[in-house]
């Protein structure tokens, strides 16, 4: 994948991101990401609002159309496909863990988790830790076929570390690289690579 496509792809996943975030996600150098985004802006492929870039609708469609060609070799890669399927097998469990983090069941009724029950929260974070251990071979499988994927494993572990350390916003807060945020970006990246649609 050339630097131009990589920058656009990173922007499609990060959405409303600065050059730094795109560089981190894609493994481009900050200078290169900045240059690519500036060029995308100049050619009408991206718009900028308050320092954050996003793709224009047409650029989004064009990018989507280029995936079949760009990712054809990776889709044929047995190791990568196997790791991808491993990810999809774990994904429903992750969603259940996050749902159990956000909601709590009281005699059959689901309520918002107000995080007043520390023992409950500890158990869910514990399950997230177990899930992460299951995900580790999948993450390293993805990264060995496509090195830039390694960033996801590092960010997931960093988020888990912070959550385990008691900073619970790192489980699913949408405004930071929480475990859930990074997991979803990874899923989005994988769906684009494999040419699949999100189910729900």
């Amino acid at each position, binding site marked *: 994948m050339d630097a131009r496509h990589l920058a656009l792809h990173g922007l499609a996943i990060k959405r409303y991101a600065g050059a730094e975030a795109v560089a981190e996600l894609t493994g481009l150098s900050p200078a290169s990401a900045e240059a690519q985004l500036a060029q995308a802006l100049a050619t009408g492929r991206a718009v900028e609002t308050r320092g954050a870039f996003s793709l224009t609708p047409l650029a989004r469609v064009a990018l989507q159309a280029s995936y079949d060609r760009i990712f054809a070799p990776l889709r044929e890669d047995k190791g990568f496909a196997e790791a991808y399927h491993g990810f999809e097998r774990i994904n429903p469990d992750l969603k259940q863990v996050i749902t159990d983090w956000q909601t709590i069941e009281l005699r059959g009724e689901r309520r918002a988790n107000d995080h007043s029950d520390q023992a409950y929260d500890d158990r869910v974070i*514990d399950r997230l830790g177990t899930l992460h251990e299951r995900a580790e071979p999948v993450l390293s499988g993805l990264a060995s076929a496509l090195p830039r994927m390694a960033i996801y494993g590092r960010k997931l572990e960093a988020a888990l570390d912070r959550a385990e*350390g008691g900073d619970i916003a790192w489980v699913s807060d949408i405004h930071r690289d929480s475990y859930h945020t990074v997991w979803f970006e990874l899923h989005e990246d994988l769906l684009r690579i494999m040419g699949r649609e999100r189910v729900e």
Partner: protein
Amino acid sequence: MMTHDWTLKLDGSAMPDRALVGGKAWSIARMLSMGLTVPPAFVITTKACAAYQSSGLPEGLEAEIAEGLAWLEAETGRQFGGGQAPLLLSVRSGAAISMPGMMDTVLNLGITEATEAALAAETGQSAFARDTHRRFLELYASIVLKTPVHLEEGATPAQWRDTISQAAGQALPDDPRAQLLAAVRAVFDSWNSRRARKYRQHNGIADDLGTAVTLQVMVFGNLDADSGTGVLFSRNPLTGARAPFGEYLPQAQGEDVVSGKFTPLRLEAMHERVGAAHDQLLIASERLEADSRDMQDIEFTVQKGRLYLLQARSAKRAPEAAARCAVEMVHEGLITQSEALDRVTPEQARELLRPRLAEGATAGLQAVATGEGACPGVASGLVVTSPDEAERRAAAGEAIILARETTSPDDIHGMIAAKAIITAQGGATSHAAVVSRALGRPCVVGCGTGVLALAGQVVTIDGEGAVYAGALPMVAPRAEEHPFLGQLLAWAAQAGNDKFTTQPAEADLKTLGAVHD
């Protein structure tokens, strides 16, 4: 008489040292000391754990375990690893302080081909005995062998064992005593799991504290018509009313309650079937609540008419219940005002004051769409189907409801801008549900494709699962008028405590695009 260096029988004679037996065994001992009945148990102490960490399973431990098992057999009249009335065990980890990363509980240890047959004959339920066997093998594979496997329900135990040894690269021991030792080792090893070590580091817990292992007899709620299982809350966990609230499932095991396959009965029905156990349960509930000075959540099983308490802990509760319990327990003299303030979080107080539809607002109205409520709350606004449009119009000051087939990370800016989110497809764990809860936006998922046709209309979303045409009147409850929160606020004010200070309700209503009544 042998000496006991590594184990301790929980026989109700004296309260053991919590650091030596861990939290789980300690709470069993506490229930025994209150004169309550729990399934017989003994514990391998943290001292054995310390010895194991330095030089493996200590000498003499195996003999003590054998003696403990013999004691359990004598207490129950059942037999471990054989016989006509098989004795099955639960194996639990338990440090003095509960912490993540420790080994989960292995249930039904002691089941083999022979004891499965005995259990089938005893219960008259061969499917139950077979399933008990399957669930034990799954737990053992996942917890002790660290190899989660899915065992097909129709297969034979021999096939299950094959599946496990292929996946784990090692065979499962046939002898339950060998399985028990392996489980004990797994508990001790889990003390040094990555997560447990990290947690101790973060929380300044000493590494040499160690964990104990509690070995407890499994009781069966499905032996006969006078058996059953259930849960009891010492007060109502939704409203906080001071009336025990429970569910009872006759002739069933705990997992039947969780599976949702059967509808549990109310407590009154339990009274009709197993009156003595029911009465004992209510007495136990009172004692446990008085002792802990908090609302209790009690798991129990009735085996042949006899009540066994499995677990009692502080109950999870809805915000209403948290406020009511806190205030009423002060009136009852159970806790102090300052403890009451500690028992209600600012989030719970906010939840109690969250704007809602005005009384009768939906009377006579037909919902234009219904689905699964994913995030509670109410909001009104104009329906748009594109996140970009949602963001643009919200920035211009319009109240917007985002309707999507499903959502993806591409939609997040629109979800942030919207007052509420509705989707055509997906369930309670879908992306839309997860993100809307993180954002605190009311959300209804799985409404069907018709929901996209609402574009351009003004609707009101009730996050319990309905969409109504038009902007319906909403009200924001006032803290002072809330019967229990009002009291807590008064106590907080007296104490100079400002934890419940919230923003004025009118501001909330305006944000939600509500029509005032």
